[in-house]
């Protein structure tokens, strides 16, 4: 089975949300700024709970922000 990858558009949504800072997103999503940085770099895949908290900050749907690629 091909290796699956989860990509995200957090950086784009963050800029579209009035150029929200990573710090602000981290505080509102309940994680550290370091975790936001790593997610935007594609080097960390969040848990489902954190993913939902992030998309809630943007007022978007989870499939709009995160993408499952096989």
């Amino acid at each position, binding site marked *: 089975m091909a290796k699956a990858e989860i990509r995200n558009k957090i950086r784009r949504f963050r800029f579209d949300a009035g150029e929200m800072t990573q*710090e602000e997103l*981290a*505080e509102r999503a*309940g*994680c*550290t*700024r*370091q*975790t936001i940085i*790593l997610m935007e770099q594609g*080097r*960390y*895949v*969040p*848990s*489902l*709970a*954190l*993913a939902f908290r992030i998309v809630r900050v943007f007022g978007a749907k989870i499939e709009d922000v995160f993408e499952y690629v096989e």
Partner: protein
Amino acid sequence: MTQARKRAIFTFLIWGSVMAAFAVIFFIGGGPERFALGKWRRVWGAIIIGFGFASYYGMLFLTRKRPGAGGVVTDERDADIRRRANGTGFVVVLLYVFLLAIFLWEKYQAAGAVPVGWMWFLAYSTSFAAYISSSVGALILESKESGRGQG
């Protein structure tokens, strides 16, 4: 720098220094065969280790999240790193105790008895190995900066 990374660095520095100091006390001036005979070497060993614990818990207190401070100090990624580092540290300690036991058996098989000083060393060094291995594991996992959240 995250709190987790800061604590891992300080844990490594504190317990690495304590281990080095204890090694000097233990191996210099008679070695393990005479460690249990020398009261002052045992006292100094206890003082060094007590200093280590005091420094460690003092560090935890000083690096705590201050009341009223904003932001998240530790999150799921930090918890995941800590969990994996502790698991690695557990295995390292098991291996260390096993290897040391084999070493002592080989060294003292003919004599039929192991000097009690080695039991002191085993007891103290196991603590050092636990703290140092888990902190090194955390630093390595932090440096890899990758992972997947749980759940």
